């Protein structure tokens, strides 16, 4: 990793990293990236440029299975606490969790600075929103863990997904913490 200070602009980091498939530890792909953190007063999310050497795994089959399963549900999907207190995730909720993870990546990117380190801590609540078009829509209430301050930050995000159109976070907002905890 290299760091470059650019006057009046910010700090640019040059990174070489290896991406590892969560679902298949042996499947890795090399990646180079440039991350530019703007000056704090600008209040801008970091700029990210990246190149991937090679291809990411094809997930068409799993995508279709999940898509068709949700589309065929009689009642909209609703769930809470994923994982639960003991780390359990019901197998049928695993794709819902992965979707939240991807979507939270966007939220994290948009809210990161050189002094933050976010992780998705838990999905407190997820509710499917019925749509007339082909997209699946989920309304998530998640908890983000910020490492440096050690705060748990509730966040709401509306996520759109379709196997051929990828993930979109159409709306997200930081939520107030419960008072006087």
């Amino acid at each position, binding site marked *: 990793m290299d760091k470059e200070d650019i006057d009046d602009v910010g700090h640019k980091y040059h990174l070489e990293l290896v991406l590892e498939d*969560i679902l298949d530890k042996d499947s890795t792909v090399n990646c180079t990236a440039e991350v530019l953190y703007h000056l704090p007063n600008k209040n801008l999310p970091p700029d990210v440029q990246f190149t991937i050497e090679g291809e990411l795994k094809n997930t068409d089959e799993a995508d279709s299975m999940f898509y068709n399963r949700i589309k065929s549900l009689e009642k909209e999907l609703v769930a809470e606490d994923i*994982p*639960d*207190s*003991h*780390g*359990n*995730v019901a197998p049928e909720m695993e794709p819902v969790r992965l979707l939240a993870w991807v979507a939270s990546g966007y939220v994290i990117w948009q809210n990161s600075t050189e002094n933050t380190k976010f*992780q*998705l*801590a*838990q999905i407190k609540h997820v509710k499917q929103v019925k749509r007339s078009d082909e997209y699946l829509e989920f309304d998530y209430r998640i*908890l983000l*863990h910020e*490492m*440096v*301050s*050690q*705060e*748990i930050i509730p966040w709401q995000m509306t996520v759109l997904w379709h196997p051929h159109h990828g993930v979109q976070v159409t709306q997200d907002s930081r939520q107030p913490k419960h*008072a*006087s*905890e």
Partner: protein
Amino acid sequence: MWALLVLIGAAAVSAHLQDLAFDRQKVFRVIPQNDEQVEIINSLASNMQVDFWQPDSVTLVRPKMQVDFRVEADKSFEVEDLLKESGVEYRVLIDNLQAALDAQFDSKTRTTRHSYEKYNNWETIAAWTADIAAQNPDLVSRSVIGETYEGRPMYLLKMGKSRPNKKAIFMDCGFHAREWISPAFCQWFVKEAVETYGKDTVMTTLLNSLDFYVLPVINIDGYVYTWTKDRMWRKTRSKNAGSNCIGTDPNRNFNAGWCTLGASKNPCDSTYCGSAPESEKETKALADFIREHLSTIKAYLTIHSYSQLLLFPYSYTYKLPSNHEELNSIARAASEQLASLYNTKYTYGPGATTIYPAAGGSDDWAYDEGIKYSFTFELRDTGRYGFLLPESQIKPTCEETLLAVKYIANYVLKHLY
């Protein structure tokens, strides 16, 4: 396929037999009036299996004595007929022993069983500390080092074969309430110590030559709160004057560069350093104990999660401790030991640069008190589950961490000062 079915069938049958061992067995209460009736009981006992509950044996039966005994299910009718025919005064004390046993296990007062591969609540852990000490009196003794804010006793286990002039290693778990894998590790360590003493040469030598002080949960109030109200709670549960916000970060509450960096002066924040160093009863109890035993404690280990890190001083400054090269080699070797089991990668180094600068930590304080070997573990994982580490990972996490802890303990033993 057939073999599998047979095995499953056999397992099912044996499980059934175990569960219903006392099904339909009866317990009778008999009061023989004279020697004749005593003789009837004698002959009963010689003709079939009779389990005397009182007195302990048939030879102790005397006239006018209350005699209780258990008989097999298929013999109970025979026994009742015999007693009726001979006019012996009797009543059925327990009609179905199995049912009575089951009722006992279902009662609301029954506490959940302790498991080393599950997360245990505080009540279960507290009971376990008593049990483990009682079952292993030669190796384990339990004491109380203080009380939490909410009045709970802080149990400490002292492990090791009793010998004069032993040096000790102190290890605590559960500083931060939501880091559930941490107390799980302390319990695992204790289990391994008592189970492998006399079998594993390293553990045997360690327990013979050193004492281990193990504090299974230091922030008990916080831990209870994560079980009852908020799984993501971190701090203690003490009230803060002039604020509605509760709790102090116990690992910002020690007198080591207290509240200078990486900590907050705001009681509503997760890293609130407290109103003063050792303002928390829990941290004061720990500090008092260590101060009292300073001449014998040669290493300090504090277990946290998550991030997979092995840290040593300092966190309150970027300055390096005088023996940082030695600490670095120990950390490197311990991390390698840990990784040897399941390839779990740990990063190691001084706290300030490896994780973040943070003042008021117990490891820095212990080091500045003179304990040369002071380490903070951040256990699994690196964020996929974070604080919500699945129970299925308790065993592998504890197994690999134990290797690192044993390595460090062994090193300390070879470098006593």
